[in-house]
């Protein structure tokens, strides 16, 4: 393999991502990528994979083209084209599947002025305090923790304040912290740390009710 090719692969494989996942295909995000046989294998242009007509169907009962005359260098194993289509793969015991948290509730976090977004799993946190603390760690320009009644984050570098807002199920932009935590987790679709100066038009903050589920 040429050095350029290898470098290209490394570049597309940032941060532990499976580079095959960044391969362009048609289809909505999250759809299984098994629409076309043979395209799943990233380097398939160099290897003749005989997929025997399978297209992501359960692997049991598949007819392998295991002709003994096949030479050793050609690969005839039938890797299926989508993890979730294969019975019992990866080999994780059903008990462990049941008790582990599912995918969690990942939402995008945008910060005014930052060039890229992050994602957080809201189910990792128990309270607004924990969430905002994690956001602070994630966007390391913020150093002042936000507790309880203060629902803004301060950027000490340029002195601007950020107000955490979120888009709810109805598509409305809301101030973070008004509703009980669990209700927030359920209805939040994405987060935006908005510059205070732009947060005109949001209702003035009132101190939240004290309750064991609030931040």
């Amino acid at each position, binding site marked *: *393999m040429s050095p350029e*090719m*290898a470098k290209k692969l490394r570049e597309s*494989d940032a941060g*532990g991502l*499976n*580079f*095959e*996942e960044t391969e362009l295909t048609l289809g909505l*995000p999250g759809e*299984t*990528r098994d629409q076309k046989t043979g395209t799943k*294998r990233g*380097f398939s242009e160099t290897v003749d994979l005989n997929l025997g007509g399978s297209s992501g169907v359960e*692997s*049991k*009962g*598949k*007819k*392998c*083209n*295991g002709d*003994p005359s*096949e*030479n*050793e*260098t*050609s*690969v*005839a*194993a*039938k*890797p*299926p084209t*989508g*993890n*979730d289509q*294969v*019975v*019992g*793969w*990866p*080999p*994780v015991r*059903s*008990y*462990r*599947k049941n*008790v*582990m*948290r*599912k*995918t*969690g509730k990942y939402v995008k976090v945008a910060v005014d002025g930052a060039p890229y977004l992050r994602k957080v799993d809201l189910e*990792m946190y*128990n*309270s607004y305090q*924990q969430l905002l603390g994690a956001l602070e*760690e994630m966007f390391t320009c913020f150093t002042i923790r936000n507790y309880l009644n203060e629902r803004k984050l301060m950027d000490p570098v340029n002195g601007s304040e950020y107000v955490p807002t979120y888009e709810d199920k109805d598509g409305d932009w809301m101030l973070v912290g008004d509703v009980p935590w669990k209700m927030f987790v359920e209805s939040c679709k994405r987060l935006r740390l908005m510059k205070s100066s732009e947060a005109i038009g949001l209702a003035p903050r009132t101190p939240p009710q004290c309750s*064991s589920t609030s931040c």
Partner: protein
Amino acid sequence: MDPKRSRNSHESVNSSESTRFPDEVLERVLSLLTSHKDRSSVSLVCKDWYNAERWTRTHVFIGNCYSVSPEIVVGRFPAIRSVTLKGKPRFSDFNLVPENWGADIHQWLVVFAEKYPFLEELRLKRMTVTDESLEFLATSFSYFKAISLMSCDGFSTDGLAAIATHCKNLTELDIQENDMEDNGGGWLSCFPENFTSLEVLNFASQQGDVSFDALEKLVDRCKSLRVLKVDKYVKLEQLHRLLVRAPQLTDLGTGNFQQELTPRQCAELESAFSNCKNLHTLSGLWDATSLYFPVLYSACGRLTFLNLSYAALQSGDLAKLLPHCPNLRRLWVLDTVEDEGLEAIGSSCPLLEELRVFPAAPFDLDINRGVTESGFIAVSRGCPRLHYVLYFCRQMTNAAVATIVQNCPDFTHFRLCIMNPGQRDYLTGEPMDEAFGAVVKTCTKLQRLAISGLLTDLTFEYIGKYAKNLETLSVAFAGSSDWGMQCVLRGCPKLRKLEIRDSPFGNAALLSGLAKYESMRSLWMSACNVTMNACKLLAREKPRLNVEVMKDDETDSQVDKVYVYRTIAGPRRDAPPFVLTL
């Protein structure tokens, strides 16, 4: 001594010397032998030794419940107090074995009830156990002490209630990782008020509330309790109440670790943990975040086994905790800790011998985080004593694995699962053959190997050539032709268990092991390239093997699943209709 006394086998010096020992002495000596492998060897020496051994054996280990029948077992061993039985093929853990396949304990219990009235211990793995069986067990053996169920199915909390009600001498109730139906937590209240003998209580796999009041009272009165693993419905606050009643615990499985506590409650919990001076194993920790880790710090210094595989920790959390755990020998984590978390392991746990990294979201294609080859390398650098690894990842390279085994040449168990089937070395684009080649060449003590990634027959050539101590091999989506499987069957003298799925091995491969299968416990092949004719031939040639076939299609000659195992009990009589015994 009568030199004319008939000898079963070996004549000459050895056997005549052995007759100088009166039977009582021989039995006394042999009763000190515990390893079943040693006992097996002893029983083969001569008839006298065979008899002395069978009279002195108190524990029998049966690795495949269909390799022998209960009648044969009780006929040979009259004095058994403890039985370990394993049932279904291991791939049943991953739903590859249909329901009602078999491995039901009941018939065994019926026979044992008659011949082993003094039975004390029963340990089962991958067996079907009904509530009726548990009730039968509880009421048939008055001296019964210990039951351990791992990866079993068919029972509910009602069965546990029967055990609690009737087993007056119970010391151990260990319910691990089972599919147990939850009919309520009232079973704990079934232990009588004067019952105090419990030493091991593990109900971590329960999926519902238990009666906490009953649990607390039970823990309070069982002063010999050393293992306590509760389920995730037990709260932190409740854990505290248990700990203060059982500071003698050596092995603790907490419940949920995510409750809002006041500072005073935190301090009390911390104090309770620091009073557990004998605690060496910690698990549970459901939903734990680093928030409450400080309560554990005082106990962490003594921990040798930490199971964090139910806590979706981030790398920072692990980095905070591990410096307090320098004596860890075994560590289980989720891949949410990522490579940074593994680096923390490498720098904090120099005595580590076993690492298992489980995937938090194995079926989710969106979430591409997890661990990579660099985390594994970091651990191998910091933990030279590592000999057992189970590692789920989404990318790996041949070079990384070579480095890892250079750093840790003592692997006995190497189980690498690259989660995308047939995935190549992501840097070079090559198959992963050289990775496993490096493993088998370098790790001469290797007993167990699980392979993954894109693999050609070359991997199997390497295994056959170098893995001379290999006993268990797991293969999935690997190989190019029959030749691969043939290499392994020909080359690995100690092979006992071979399980293969979705690989292009066909009839020639299956039949090349004709001479070998009787020296193995079992062979499993599913979604391979085997036909009925080859299976029938195998069954015909080898009457002491059971060849069991499961087919998708009645008329098809293609075999979907074949399970081959040695047996002295003949074809099994409880096979369901979808299992054809040839």
